[in-house]
């Protein structure tokens, strides 16, 4: 097994006011170089787990290590190790794509020259070189998603957290984004991905974990899991393991 990108050990976390913790003695290991998919029904704890791994939330017990570094021992400097692409279009709509990348590049700790190089590179790869000076608010949803992705990868981190990065985009944009993510992975970036688009996930992830009510109910290579549970695809596997009832959370 490759060295670990993420190592969650005996984690306990609960939201204030809830009677029982969402995660109790929770463990998860994600090896470097994996394209790891984290799936589960609404309220399963995917976003909470993502927020714990990115340091947005703090665990009450246990430890989370990114590339061997325990995150609670560091200040913001540990954030250099990972990039984060949130579900929200988290950038400034009044600015154009270049200006957004310049700003987030500076906050990612890049030097002026690096920012310029990375901005040109990313705008070219993601097909936005011609619209680089157009305010982002005038972009289509798909173009905005590409800007969101470009900001998350500008610092070229070893780990990339992706929270539903392709919501509301057309087939062409989804295809381009997934291909680009695979390209990043080939170059050594560990992808930690969550989505409800299971067909898309099937094409991207080589390792999956199914999460329900704060517990991992299945975790292995996708193909191994499909064979083990005699399922034809990820969606069938998902329904088989988590049931077909509504989740009102």
């Amino acid at each position, binding site marked *: 097994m490759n060295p670990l990108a993420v190592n969650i050990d005996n984690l306990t976390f609960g939201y204030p006011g809830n009677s029982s913790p969402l995660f109790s003695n929770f463990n998860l290991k994600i090896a470097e170089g994996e394209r790891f998919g984290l799936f589960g029904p609404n309220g399963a704890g995917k976003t909470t787990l993502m927020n714990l791994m990115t340091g947005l939330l703090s665990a009450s017990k246990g430890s989370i290590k990114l590339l061997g570094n325990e995150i609670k021992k560091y200040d*913001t*400097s540990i954030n250099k190790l990972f990039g984060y692409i*949130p579900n929200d279009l988290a*950038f400034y709509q009044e*600015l154009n794509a270049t200006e957004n990348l*310049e700003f987030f590049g500076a*906050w990612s*700790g890049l030097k002026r020259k690096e920012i310029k190089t990375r901005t040109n590179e990313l705008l070219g790869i993601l097909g936005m070189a011609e619209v680089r000076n157009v305010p982002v608010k005038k972009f289509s949803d798909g173009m905005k998603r590409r800007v969101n992705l470009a900001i998350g990868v500008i610092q070229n981190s070893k780990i990339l957290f992706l929270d539903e990065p392709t919501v509301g985009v057309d087939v062409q944009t989804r295809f381009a984004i997934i291909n680009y993510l695979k390209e990043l992975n080939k170059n050594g970036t560990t992808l930690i991905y969550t989505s409800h688009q299971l067909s898309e996930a099937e094409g991207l992830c080589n390792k999956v974990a199914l999460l329900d009510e704060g517990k991992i109910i299945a975790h292995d290579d996708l193909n191994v899991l499909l064979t083990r549970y005699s399922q034809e695809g990820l969606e069938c596997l998902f329904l088989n393991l988590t049931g077909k009832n509504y989740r009102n959370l």
Partner: protein
Amino acid sequence: MFKLWATIIKDIRILTRDKVWIGFMFGMPILLVLIVTSIQNSTFELINKNKISLLICNRDTGRISAEFIEYVDKIGMFKLEQVPKDQSEKLITSLMHTREALLAMIIPADFSVKINAKSKIVAGKALHTFGLEADTVDVNAANMQPVTLLYKPVLQESFRRSIEGALYSALQLVESKQILKSLYFSINEKSLPLTLENELLNNRVAINEVPVSRDSSMTVPNASQHNVPAWTIFAMFFVVISLGCSIVREKLSGSFTRLKTLPTNYFVALLSKQLTYLLVTTVQAGVIFALGIWVLPFLGLPQLNMPADIAGLVIVTLICGMCAVSYAICIGVFAQTEEQANGFGSVSIVILAAIGGLMVPSFAMPESFTTIIKLSPLHWCLEAFYGLFLEGGKLKDVLTNILPLLIIIVSLQLITFFGLKVKKLI
């Protein structure tokens, strides 16, 4: 430093691309200064230059009432218009409406006779105290009817009181003259000589009005000196709408969360916002002061006289700006939605401006307000600006106003810090 610079550039770019915001932050205070200065200037002129119409119905035919009217005219406040003596009070009231007169005065028919009688009684009493014999006068003769003053309710009480005071002084002059004449006649059995009458009644001690200033300048404050600093402060504090909303927008859009996942402390973002908006408030002040110096005189309004201590003015402006920015950041951190930041921000600024003396001078406020006034940062900003603009003071003269401002700034920054901590934003 590069991160801070990049953040400031980002904030300035976002600000300058919002044309509505620019109009609001600069257009609104310019309009306020122009409108309020014009209105207040015309109020000053109403009192100092324009005369108030006063209808006079003199039902008396004697000499003393004519003298009284002459003295009222000499006050210089009124444009007198006599109406026939047989007009009823009702008719005079309707005349006030048709002739747009704010005031009317009815002098009773026995005015001269009664004043004469009253003066003889007073003179008699005076002679009696000297041990001299006086003519016998019927004491009931002095029970005179009052002079009636009709006024339109639009006339503010303070203004009405000053009119009453002026009329009383004219009345007192008439009565004093009559008493003097009676006294003189009783003693000398001849009329008071005109020269002596003038000497006794008109040789009053003059009142020399001098504006109190710290730099001994004799510049008389005008509507611009009062209004330009006041509305500049108001405009500076209105950054609460833009800055408060900017923070809320960042929280709601997810940008704030994303910034927290980057290897930079969020304090850089807060510092950038403070510096950017401090720059905005300083530019606002510069634009409004420039308007006062160069534009107001073109519109026939008095020019703004800049204080002698320009360095002091810059420091006071920066401190006021910092106070406004700290307040706005605090609102932004605690507001959950843009509507909350907008609503609470703007209403609270209007309230703080009202209790701070921007709309009604603090000296005119009830005593119960003395503590509340001191809680408004706008009050201390205004006092500091007035110390420089109206009193000709230097920075050291307004330190007592700057100190509370610094305390307010530190308190607001601490509240913001605890707000960020409690809401787990840092």
